């Protein structure tokens, strides 16, 4: 160890030592000259004689230097130069190899960087390791007030936030951004400071805020909406129709405590009553909408804080809940990486995709290994000469390895660029109109280290095969046998093994692609129960526009009439609840007639889904009325409560009975008896995956105004081809009818598409990876067959000269190809059968070992394999035997 250190130090002071040595040798010569002079020689003769006696100085210096120098350092740089020269001389090879690796490494890095920013990366705040999240779920504001009162006993600071979508428009069509209500100390506890102005303080988060209503905005919003104006501080910002003063801009990397959401506007909780008015949730003990985090005290374990929390729990519960619903112990969980709803949803698919893309990279490496090996074999003459001239085998292996390392490094550099582009593209695909997914994909050391590791791994995978394939090189073996190889040549064994592995891995990926594509296709073909094409959906937000809740019913009817009178609108109606979001309005318990309340589904899943609609809603949606009647203008508060049910409801709760005239009671409102006046066809309520569920509709006009949802959906059935024009005219009509209303347009197509975002993405990615692997495997097979045919052309020519027909030559080639493909298929099928179980949760209406998919994938591979081998086989069968034998 010490020696190495001493040598290294020596290398670092190279020139000084060289000069030292030269001076020493000169001194040596001078001393000898003195001796000669003492012996009586003339000074001139003495100098000559001393020089002669010294011998070859240059050699001595070299030899002495070698004692110290690390010879490898010198020769490695020489190898790098040789490798670069070699790659420059064959730009085609370099391009294919670097391009293949760039795709492989780039795609892998792209997925990893998403994985990294969603799951691995800590929050960009001070000491994220000491943050802890109150689990499980969300909390009411009164609970937060209780915890805040005990903040300093429990922790080094606590904060709460609630993600919201805010509308920044002053009037008319909404302009939504993601934001949050935050407690006063959030920025202080996280250690985030403003780059302009100041962040929200506890003083802002009180009813008597000295600065009035304040907001802080993200760096991105500041740059994009205010073009980075320096005088942003003090400007007014309209949020949900209320004016706020911008007091600060958040730093660039900070997106809030939620990973996957970007909080562009943050308001203190104290601002919530300004926006929601009498419907403020700050005093509501029943609604849970907050997340709570704490910073642990220094040197305190999370268990200690948990214990303290449990001691305080009885008082917290007493002060903050209606009844003792909070029975589970309050528990903190480490939250260095923040809070994320996306994490659980995407962890499995993301992991599956990282594995898939890793396999693609493996196939790509096999291809490059094969190419490098072919190159090395083609250069056997050159390499044999090197061996003959005294180059060690190790040195040649190193030279080849450096070549693959260079290719891998170039591929990784290009791949990084490809990754930063494609990962942003992928994340955009995850966003829907309802839910914007935003991830900070900036490169960090984890991603860079991952890419570097990939590059090294690729270089090793691709570089080992050529080195192994070269064991047959001997110094005397300067090749004279070009084209004279015969079947069974050991040189092809390595490449053949590579091709078998490639086909096997490709089959695994093609099977996966088949499973995911079929899942996506069957999800897309599921019946919706309504006709989405002509539909426009307008989300009306009456709450943001202020006004008294009692008047909302009348306002909604006015808006509906305004929309219905627009030319091109065939019909328009209103419903209270958005469908196809995966959730909605529901009841856990249901009673039919005078029977008992029953819970049909398991706990946690509702037994009955509910929606409130206005007359003509079913007609607008294209849901058929099977029997009875639709709601009418006469169904109002005061008249008997009525309901319409769907066919699934009848099947579940009234099998074989006449549903009309029956009564239904709901668990949360057991006094009201709803009379069934109509039966309609089934329509998807939650997601197409869940299928048709029992649903009951009630008239909007019979709902008490207090429970009127802050937003309602105006559904418009537009005449064919006029959706865009209708959208524009309806927007104008709505603003004319009610200047205060906020609204957002959407189409049912988008809403339906949003239910399968994840499946679409998986299907898209796996199809891409499968196709890529297939292409690479085909190239690999083509390469190995073409090379084999070329190397055996003398043999083939001989066979033809002896009377073999061209079809028998094709058969000869295909015998070998068939063996390779069969081997690959066997390997791939075994791998797929084993790996299939891991994707089970991602599939729909398919078993993971679906025989049809497996057979289809195998057929595709065989077809591609035959295609890849066909061209070289043709060429072989058309060889001119006379020419081959003459020239070979």
């Amino acid at each position, binding site marked *: 160890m010490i020696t190495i250190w001493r040598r290294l130090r020596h290398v670092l002071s190279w020139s000084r030592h060289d000069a030292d040595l030269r001076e020493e040798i000169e*001194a*040596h010569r001078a*001393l*000898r000259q003195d001796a000669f002079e003492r012996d009586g020689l003339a000074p001139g003769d003495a100098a000559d004689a001393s020089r002669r006696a010294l*011998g*070859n100085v240059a050699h*001595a210096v070299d030899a002495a230097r070698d*004692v110290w120098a690390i010879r490898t350092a010198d020769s490695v740089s020489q190898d790098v130069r040789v490798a670069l020269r070699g790659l420059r001389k064959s730009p085609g090879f370099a391009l294919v190899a670097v391009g293949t690796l760039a795709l492989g490494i780039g795609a892998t890095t792209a997925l990893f960087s998403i994985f990294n920013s969603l799951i691995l990366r800590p929050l960009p705040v001070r000491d994220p390791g000491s943050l802890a999240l109150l689990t499980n779920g969300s909390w009411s504001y009164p609970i937060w007030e209780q915890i805040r009162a005990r903040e300093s006993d429990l922790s080094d600071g606590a904060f709460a936030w609630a993600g919201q979508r805010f509308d920044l428009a002053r009037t008319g069509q909404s302009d939504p951004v993601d934001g949050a209500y935050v407690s006063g100390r959030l920025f202080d506890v996280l250690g985030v400071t403003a780059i302009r102005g100041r962040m929200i303080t506890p003083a802002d988060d009180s009813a008597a805020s000295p600065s009035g209503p304040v907001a802080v905005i993200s760096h991105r919003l500041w740059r994009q909406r205010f073009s980075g104006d320096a005088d942003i501080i003090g400007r007014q910002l309209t949020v949900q129709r209320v004016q706020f003063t911008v007091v600060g801009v958040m730093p660039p990397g900070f997106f809030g405590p939620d990973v996957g959401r970007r909080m562009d506007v943050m308001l203190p909780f104290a601002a919530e009553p300004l926006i929601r008015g009498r419907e403020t949730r700050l005093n509501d003990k029943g609604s849970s909408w907050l997340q709570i985090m704490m910073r642990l005290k220094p040197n305190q374990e999370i268990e200690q804080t948990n214990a303290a929390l449990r001691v305080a729990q009885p008082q917290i519960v007493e002060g903050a809940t209606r009844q003792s619903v909070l029975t589970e112990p309050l528990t903190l969980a480490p939250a260095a990486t923040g809070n994320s709803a996306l994490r659980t949803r995407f962890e499995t698919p993301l992991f599956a995709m990282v594995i898939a893309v890793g396999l693609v990279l493996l196939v790509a490496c096999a291809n490059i290994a094969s190419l490098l090996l072919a190159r090395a074999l083609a250069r056997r003459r050159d390499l044999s000469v090197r061996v003959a001239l005294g180059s060690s085998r190790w040195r040649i292996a190193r030279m080849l390895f450096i070549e693959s390392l260079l290719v891998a490094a170039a591929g990784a550099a290009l791949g990084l660029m490809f990754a930063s582009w494609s990962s942003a593209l992928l994340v955009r695909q995850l966003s829907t109109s309802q839910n914007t997914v935003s991830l900070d994909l900036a490169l960090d050391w984890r991603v860079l280290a991952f890419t570097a590791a990939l590059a090294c791994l690729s270089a090793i995978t691709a570089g080992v095969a050529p080195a192994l394939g070269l064991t047959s090189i001997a110094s005397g073996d300067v090749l004279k046998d070009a084209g004279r190889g015969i079947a069974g040549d050991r040189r092809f064994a390595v490449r053949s093994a590579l091709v078998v592995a490639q086909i096997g891995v490709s089959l695994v990926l093609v099977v996966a692609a088949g499973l995911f594509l079929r899942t996506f296709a069957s999800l897309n073909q599921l019946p919706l129960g309504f006709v989405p094409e002509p539909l426009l959906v307008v989300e009306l937000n009456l709450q943001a526009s202020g006004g008294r809740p009692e008047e909302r019913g009348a306002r909604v009817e006015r808006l509906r009439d305004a929309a219905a009178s627009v030319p091109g609108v065939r019909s328009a109606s209103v419903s209270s609840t958005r469908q196809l979001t995966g959730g909605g309005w529901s009841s856990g318990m249901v009673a039919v007639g005078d029977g008992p309340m029953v819970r049909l589904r398991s706990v946690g899943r509702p037994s009955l889904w509910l929606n409130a609609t206005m007359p003509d809603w079913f007609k607008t949606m294209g849901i058929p009325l099977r029997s009875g009647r639709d709601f009418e203008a006469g169904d109002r508060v005061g008249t008997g409560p009525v309901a319409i049910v769907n066919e699934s409801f009848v099947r579940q709760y009234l099998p074989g009975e006449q549903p009309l005239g029956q009564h239904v009671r709901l668990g949360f409102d057991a006094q009201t008896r709803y009379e069934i006046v109509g039966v309609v066809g089934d329509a998807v309520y939650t997601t197409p995956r869940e299928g048709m569920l029992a649903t009951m509709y009630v008239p909007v006009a019979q709902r008490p105004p207090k429970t009127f949802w802050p937003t309602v959906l105006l559904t418009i059935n537009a005449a064919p081809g006029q959706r865009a024009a209708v959208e524009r005219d309806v927007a104008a009509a709505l603003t004319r009818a009610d200047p205060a209303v906020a609204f957002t347009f959407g189409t049912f197509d988008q809403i339906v598409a949003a239910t399968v975002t994840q499946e679409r993405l998986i299907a898209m990615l796996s199809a891409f990876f499968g196709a890529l692997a297939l292409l690479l495997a085909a190239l690999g097979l083509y390469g190995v067959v073409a090379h084999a045919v070329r190397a055996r052309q003398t043999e083939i020519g001989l066979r033809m000269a002896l009377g073999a027909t061209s079809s028998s030559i094709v058969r000869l080639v295909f015998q070998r190809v068939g063996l390779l493909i069969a081997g690959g298929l066997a390997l791939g099928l075994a791998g797929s059968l084993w790996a299939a179980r891991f994707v089970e949760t991602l599939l729909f209406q398919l078993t993971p070992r679906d025989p049809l998919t497996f057979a289809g994938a195998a057929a595709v591979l065989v077809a591609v394999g035959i295609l890849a081998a066909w061209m070289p086989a043709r060429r072989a069968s058309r060889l001119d035997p006379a020419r081959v034998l003459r020239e070979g």
Partner: protein
Amino acid sequence: MSPEPSGLVQGTLHMLILKTLTLEPLHGYGIGVRLEQISRGGFLVNAGSLFPGLRRLERDGLIRGEWRVTENNRRAKYYHLTPQGRARLTRETRQWEAQMAAIGRILAATKDAL
């Protein structure tokens, strides 16, 4: 010129250099002259093997060199033994003597013993 010290057993040059340095620090030329004198002309060490040898010994920490002025006012690099060098010399001398004794016994063996 006198014959090259090709007869020198591989590795013994190092031991001899170390030995010449036990009495006093010497420069490279001085080491060559001293070896020649002591061996009564038996060994001629040329610069081509002397300097790599010195470098190797210096690298291994057995000797250390420093520039000084000779009695004739020339600058020369004087080498002296380090404690490790002294230990190494003792060890190698002992090994060498043991080997020589063994070889001597073999060469002196009578016909009967063979």
